[in-house]
Each structure stands twice: as C-alpha cells, then as structure tokens.
C-alpha cells in the first residue's frame, strides 16, 4: 500500500489506517465492558436477585423475548406492523417539525444578526417567549389546533425554532468585524456582504444549532406524544405504562434512543458534507 510520497494519503487509506488503529487501541473492548456491566447489573438486580425495589421492573430476558418474538404478548415487537407505525409517526412529525424550524429559524436568525432595526423590534418578544418550557405550550396547542397531529408537530417545531434562530444569530454576531470592513473595502454592496460574508460566516454556528435542535425536537416530540398523541413512540411508552405492559416501555425507550441517535448522525453528516464543500481545512 504505497502511500503517495508527498501528496495527502488518499481518503480510503486514511480510513483503513484509522480503523486499524482503533481496533488495536483498547477503546472498543472497554466499551464492551461498560455495556456488559450495564446489562449485567440490570439482569442481576431484576432477575437473579429479584430485589424488592426492582420487582416491578421488566427484566432483560423478558424485554428481549418480547422484542424479538413473532407474536409478542403485548402486541409490539420487531415483527408487528403497529410498532413500525409508531416509529414512522414519530419520524414524520420530527421531519416536519425540524424542517419547518430550520426553514423559518435560519432566516429569522440571519435577519436578527444582520439588521439592527429587525433585531430591536423582534428580539425582545423572542426572548420573552423562549424561556417558556415547550411542555407548558401543550394545553394551549391542543386548544389552538384541531385534531391531535398538529399540536404535536407544532410543539416539535417550537423547541427547534428557538434554538436554530438563536444559534444563527450567535453565528452572525461571531463574524469578526474586519471581514465586514474588508468586504466594504473591496467594493461589496450590502447584498453581496450578506451573501458572501454573513451567510458563510454564520454557517458553523448554524450547524451546531441544528445538531442541538434535532435533540430538542425529539425531547418535545416525546413529551407531546405522551400527553396528547395518537400514535408515536412517546404515545407507545405512555400507553404501555397505563396498561401495565412494562416490557414495551423499554422497547419504546430503546427505539427512541436508536432512532434519535440515527437522526443526529444524519444531521451531523449533512453538516459535515456541506461544511467540507465550503472550507476544506476550515
């Protein structure tokens, strides 16, 4: 594997090299130990020792059995249709809410950062509404919007919108003044300054904002679904609690973790791809 003498080692080789180093390092084995301890503790306390405090809790084997069986006792497992219906319902709401929050949040954030007049009028109201916890909006959302779908999407949108707009604003304010002066010197008119300096300059902050925003979206979604949803993972967890189908609670939580992590990886990958297009080394 002759790496080109002076040039950068090519992409593939770099990955192979890093993989080899990762496998050689203790990290993967320590991670396995950690996970083993967690599952071991769970199995030990619930099933083996059957400690009083853990009596009600669903055991590891019970959850696994439920999750992997063809016809689960409580109707939800990898092979049942409505499991995927719940997953899809949550994902669809996240997609709509997150997309709306991005499409509205970024421009609002850019305007807040760029135009003095817009900021002085809009930002005070923005700061008044932001501290109100998303969940406090639930009753109002139910009243305001008919049906059960819109309130949940609205709540998912709300959390993400504030975070996206705020981070975009911070992004614009983070741009060093000398870049604005330099652009002015080179004869750029306001619109060119906005397009060539403000937007690219704020990009890194916008991406950090999106990564936080997807997390907040899931946070709001689960809460909304637990209180007022029809389908969705939050709804699944809450109903399986009320109907004393405890293993399904854990299934819902694990699914939330996996799907939630998946969406954050997607957002991070999109950010990295766009950023790589913009600043190779930056």
């Amino acid at each position, binding site marked *: 594997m002759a790496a080109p003498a002076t040039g950068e080692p090519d992409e593939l080789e770099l990955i192979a090299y890093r993989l080899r180093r990762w496998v050689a390092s203790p990290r993967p084995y320590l991670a396995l130990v950690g*996970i083993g301890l967690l599952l071991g503790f769970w199995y030990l306390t619930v099933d083996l020792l059957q400690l009083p405090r853990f009596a009600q809790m669903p055991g590891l084997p019970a959850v696994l059995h439920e999750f992997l069986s063809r016809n689960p006792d409580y109707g939800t497992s990898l092979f049942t249709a409505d499991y995927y219906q719940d997953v899809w319902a949550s994902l669809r709401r996240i997609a709509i809410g997150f997309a709306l929050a991005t499409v509205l949040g970024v421009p609002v954030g850019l305007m807040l950062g760029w135009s003095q007049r817009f900021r002085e009028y809009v930002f005070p109201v923005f700061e008044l509404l932001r501290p109100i916890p998303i969940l406090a909006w*639930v009753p109002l959302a139910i009243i305001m919007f008919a049906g059960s779908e819109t309130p949940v999407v609205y709540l998912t949108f709300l959390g993400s919108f504030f975070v996206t707009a705020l981070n975009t604003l911070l992004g614009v304010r983070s741009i060093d003044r000398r870049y604005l002066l330099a652009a002015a010197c080179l004869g750029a008119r306001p619109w060119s300054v906005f397009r060539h300096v403000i937007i690219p300059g704020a990009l890194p902050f916008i991406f950090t904002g999106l990564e936080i925003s997807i997390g907040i979206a899931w946070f709001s979604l689960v*809460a909304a679904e637990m209180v007022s949803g029809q389908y969705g993972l939050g709804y699944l967890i809450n109903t399986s609690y009320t109907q004393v189908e405890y293993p399904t609670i854990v299934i819902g939580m694990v699914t939330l973790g996996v799907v939630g992590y998946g969406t954050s990886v997607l957002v991070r990958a999109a950010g990295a791809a766009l950023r790589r297009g913009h600043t190779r080394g930056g």
Partner: protein
Amino acid sequence: MSDSLQIRLVGWRVRLPRPRIDRARRRALVSFALLLLIWELGSTSASWLGTPLPVLGRIPSPTAVGTVWLHLLGQADYWGSWYQSCLRVLLGFTAALLVGVPFGLWLATNRLAHGICFPVFEMLRPIPPLAWVPAAIIFWPTQELSIASVIFLGAFYTIVTNVLGGARAIDARLIQSAQSLGASRWTVFRRIVFPAVLPSIFVGMEVGIGITWEVVVAAEMISGGGSGGASGGLGFFIWNSYVGGSYPQIIVGMLSIGIAGYLSSSAIRWAAPRVMRWR
C-alpha cells in the same frame, strides 16, 4: 477606536454594535404593545367579527389573562405551585450538579473510567429524559422521587457533557508548565484543571437549569395529571386548569414558568462572575 463604528456602504447604512440605548428600548415597547394588541383583537374577534379566527380566536385574551392573574396573586395554592416546582427543580438540579461535576471530572482525568463509562453514557443520551418518566414511576416508591429522578437525569447529561468538553479544551501548556514547576498530580487537578473547567461548569448549569424547568413541567403534567395525585407544581397547575376548562389560567401558568425559568438562569449568570473573579 470608538465603539459605534459606522460604515456607510454605498447607499445603505449599517450601524454596528452599541445602538443608542433609548431607541432600542422604545422599539421593544412598540413591539410588545403590537403583540398585545394583535393578541387582544385576535382572541376577542369572535365578538365583533362574528366568527372566531382559526388559531388565535380560540385562546383567551390578554385582558382575561390579566384579571385572572391578578386574582391568582392573592391565592395561596398559586404560590404553592410555585413553591412545589421550585423545590423540585432545586433538589433535582443540585443533585445533578453534585453527582455530575465529579463524574465529569473523573471521566476527564481517568482514561480507564472514560473508556468504560463514556460509551454507555453516550448510548443512553439520545433517549429523551421524559421517556424515563413511566420507568421512574414504576421504580421509585413515591411520586416525588420519580419526578426528582427525571429532573436529575435532564440536568445530569448537560452538566457532564459540558464538564467533559471544558476539560478537553484546557490548553496543554497550562498543565505542562505546572508539571515543569514541580506540581503533583493532585495540585495540578486542584489548582489547574478544576478552575480551568469552572467556566464550562457554569455554561452546563445555565443550560441544565433550562432543561430542568422543561422536565419538571412535563413530569408534573404526566405523573400529576395522570394518577391525580396531589403533587402540585406549576406543571400540574397548567394541566389542571386545562382539564378544569379555565383557559386563562393556562396562560398564567405558562408565563409564570417562563418567568421562573428566566429568574433561575439569570441567578446563575449573576453568580458566575462572583465565583470566577478573574473573568
């Protein structure tokens, strides 16, 4: 160089930082007034427009909310809800701080602990805190403990992540220069690592307290509302107002929590420079 640097781009003025304070305040007042006006007209439109507006029409008007709030200010159980929620936030948040900071520092300084615990920590992090509510209710004996445990979880993740981030960002030269001056591992930790991480601890606290308020409201709504226990708190107050049909109280509850959340984060912002005198 003067602060209010002014550039006159061709035909368009950009006045950069530090606008005159009075104008900014004037504009804020104008926008608040406008918001209240639209809200008032929107929600009372049913009376003079004939048909209520689709969204705005359904919510109670500011005047209604105002009168209800004034009335509530005299009520004991309104302030009781404040007390309950604040107590829960304080307990859950302090516990998260007392456990989270040492745990974060331990992970930052001990490679083995980081190797084992961090993957598990990262694995559980995507699960939103509220998904733990049912499990917490099952596990913990009392209503109070289950809510407190979920609040703890919400703040714990933020604090640990920030402490780890802060520890990783320490300039290696600070530690190297301490070693070259003969400092022991403990001295390096106590007098270099900890103060260097302090600013990120405060950032974690400020974000954490915000999340704690989000979680306390939800936990009170879900558990309080669910089994009808007299757990109280602002979250339950809102849910109860909704169930009881007194809609203006919902908005009173929302604004109250907003104020409570704002007060707690500004308390932290106020405390930070006092603790970190060198900033």
